[in-house]
C-alpha cells in the first residue's frame, strides 16, 4: 500500500494534476473567501464552506480520473495485479493518495483563518466542524470517482462521468422536490449529499451524516475492489 501511495503522490505532481487541482482550488476558494467572508465584514465562514461544495464537486473528478483508468490503458495494472499485494492495498493506496491531496487543498482554510484572526475573532468550533464536513464529503466523492475510474480505460470519460454523477447527487434535493411519490421523495432526501453537508455549515454536527459519508466512501471503495476482482474472472 505504501509503495502505491507514494507512487501515486509522485504521479500527481509529475503529471501536473496536483498543480492544476491545487491552484484552481485555491483560486476559487479564495474568491469565495474574499466575497463571502471579508467582503461581507464577517468572520463567519459558513457561506464560504457551503459554496465550496460545488468546487469540490467539479475538482475531485480531476483527481480521480486517471487513478485506475490509466493503469488499465497502459497495461501497468498487470504489474500491480501480478505483484504480491492484495487488491485492497492497491485500491486503498490510490484512494489515500487522492485524499491526501484533497486534504492539502482544503487546508487552505487555515491560512484564511489566520488572515481572519487579524481582522476579528475566529469562531474555531464551527470552522473545524466545517473543515471536517468537507473532509468526509471529499472522502465520499473520491471513492465515487475512483470507482468510476475503474470502469473505463479513458480518463476523460471517467472525469466527465464522475462530474455528471456528482452533479446528480448535488441536484438530488431539487429532484426530490419534483417527485410526488412520498416514499420516493423520502428516499431521495435521505440520500441527499448537499443537505447533509449544509447541515454542518449551519453549525450542526450530525453523527448520522458522518456515518452516511463514511459509509458511502467505504461502499464505493469496496465496489472498486470488486470491479478489479471481477475483471480477473471475466
Amino acid at each position: 500500500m505504501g509503495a502505491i501511495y507514494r507512487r501515486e503522490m509522485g504521479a500527481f505532481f509529475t503529471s501536473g494534476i496536483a498543480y492544476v487541482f491545487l491552484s484552481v482550488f485555491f483560486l476559487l476558494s479564495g474568491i469565495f473567501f474574499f466575497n463571502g467572508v471579508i467582503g461581507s465584514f464577517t468572520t463567519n465562514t459558513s457561506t464560504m464552506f457551503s459554496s465550496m461544495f460545488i468546487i469540490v464537486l467539479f475538482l475531485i473528478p480531476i483527481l480521480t480520473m486517471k487513478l485506475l483508468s490509466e493503469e488499465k490503458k497502459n497495461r501497468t495494472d498487470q504489474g500491480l495485479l501480478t505483484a504480491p499485494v492484495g487488491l485492497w492495498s492497491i485500491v486503498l493506496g490510490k484512494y489515500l493518495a487522492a485524499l491526501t491531496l484533497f486534504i492539502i487543498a482544503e487546508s487552505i482554510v487555515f491560512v484564511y483563518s489566520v488572515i481572519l484572526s487579524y481582522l476579528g475573532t475566529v469562531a474555531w468550533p464551527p470552522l473545524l466542524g466545517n473543515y471536517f464536513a468537507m473532509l468526509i464529503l471529499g472522502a465520499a466523492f473520491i471513492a465515487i470517482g475512483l470507482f468510476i475510474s475503474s470502469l473505463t480505460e479513458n480518463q476523460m470519460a471517467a472525469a466527465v462521468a464522475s462530474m455528471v454523477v456528482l452533479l446528480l447527487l448535488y441536484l438530488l434535493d431539487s429532484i426530490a422536490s419534483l417527485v410526488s411519490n412520498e416514499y420516493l421523495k423520502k428516499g431521495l432526501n435521505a440520500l441527499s449529499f448537499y443537505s447533509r453537508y449544509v447541515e454542518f455549515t449551519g453549525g450542526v454536527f450530525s453523527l448520522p451524516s458522518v456515518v452516511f459519508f463514511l459509509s458511502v466512501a467505504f461502499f464505493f471503495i469496496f465496489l472498486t475492489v470488486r470491479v478489479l476482482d471481477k475483471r480477473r474472472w471475466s
Partner: protein
Amino acid sequence: MIEVKNLSKRYGDKQAVNNISFKVEKGEILGFLGPNGAGKSTTMNMLTGYISSTSGQILVNGVDILEDPIAAKANIGYLPEIPPLYVDMTVDAYLGFMYDLKKCKLPRKAHLNDVCNLCKISGVRNRLIRNLSKGYKQRVGLAQALINNPPVLILDEPTVGLDPNQIIEIRTLIKKLGKSHTVILSSHILPEIQAVCDRIIIINKGVVAANGTADEIARNITNEHKMTLRIEGSTHTASDKKEIADAIRALGGVKYVRADMEREKGIYDYDVEAEEKVDIRRAINDLCREKGWNILMLQLSDLTLEDIFLKITMGDTVVGDVSQQTETSSGPKLNLKVEDGQLIATEQLSDAAEEILEESAADMNKADDEEENGGEE
C-alpha cells in the same frame, strides 16, 4: 516448481485455453510456442494470477495461486507482452517502486545495482522511461521482473522489438538466469526457443499440441526418415536423373524419391524418404558402387522445429495432403512457407512439368528450396 492441472479459460463462448496440464521443474527453461491467438498469453496471465482460470489448478512452488495469491505471486517475476512501465517515471524511481511493491528485503542499493547491471540499463537509470527506446523499455521490464530475485520467471515474448545484438544479449541472459531460476518463455521466433529452451510446449487452439524437447517432439510426430542425396551419374545429363531416381525407387524400403534441381553441372540432388525406421543408406551406397555412380553428399534431413510447428499448427488438412503426397510420388507436392507471418501453402508442379520449366525457373526454384531447407543449414 510449477504445476498446471487441467487448466481452462473461457471468454464468453470462446474457449481460449482448453484443459492444459504440464509441469515445470526447478531450473528448467520451458519454451511456449504457438501461433497468434493460441492461448500463450492467456496461459501466462493465469500462471501469474493476472486473470483467473475458469477451471483447473495452478501450483507455484506448491502454493495454489487462487488460494494464496500473495504467497504464490511472491515467487514469480513476470514480464508481460507489454512491459508494465509508468512512462512518467525515471528508470530508477520505477525500479524503486517495484522494489517497494514487492516488499523486497534484499539490500536496496546493491540489489537494484545488480539488476541494472544484469539488464545493462545502468546508463539510463536517471532517464524518463517515456524517452527510452523500445529495446531499453523491454530491458527495464525484464529488470522489474528480476527484482526480489523470484525463483520463477515468466517472460512473454521478451525479445520483441530488440535489435539482433540485443536479442543475443537477452538470450544469453535468459540462459544464465535459467541456471538459478525456473523460466517460462514464450516466443514465436522458433530458433530462439530452440537456442534457449530445454523443453518446448507447443500450444495450438488452446490445447497442448506437443510437449518435450525438440528432438522428442520430432520423433513423436513422425517416423519418416528423410535424406537428401547428391549423386553423380555416368553421363552428366538429365537422363542420369531419371535412371538414378528409378534405381533408388526400386530399392527395398524406399517410400518416395524425388529428383531435385541441378546443384552442380550435370549432377542432381534427390530427396529420398524411407519407410519407418528402415536405414537405407548402406543399400544406396551399394547400389551406387555397383552402377559406378558417386555419392557426393548425403544429408539426413530430420524435421526442424519449423517443420514441426507448421505441421502441428496447419491442422489436419495439410497433414493429410502431405501423406497423400508421399503415396503417389508424381502427385502434386505442397510447399509450405511463411510469408509476412501467414502460412501459405502453394502447390508445386509435378516432376514432369518441373523438368521442362527447370532451366528458366531455376532461380525461382532455388529461392523456394532454400526457404524449404532454411532451418537445416
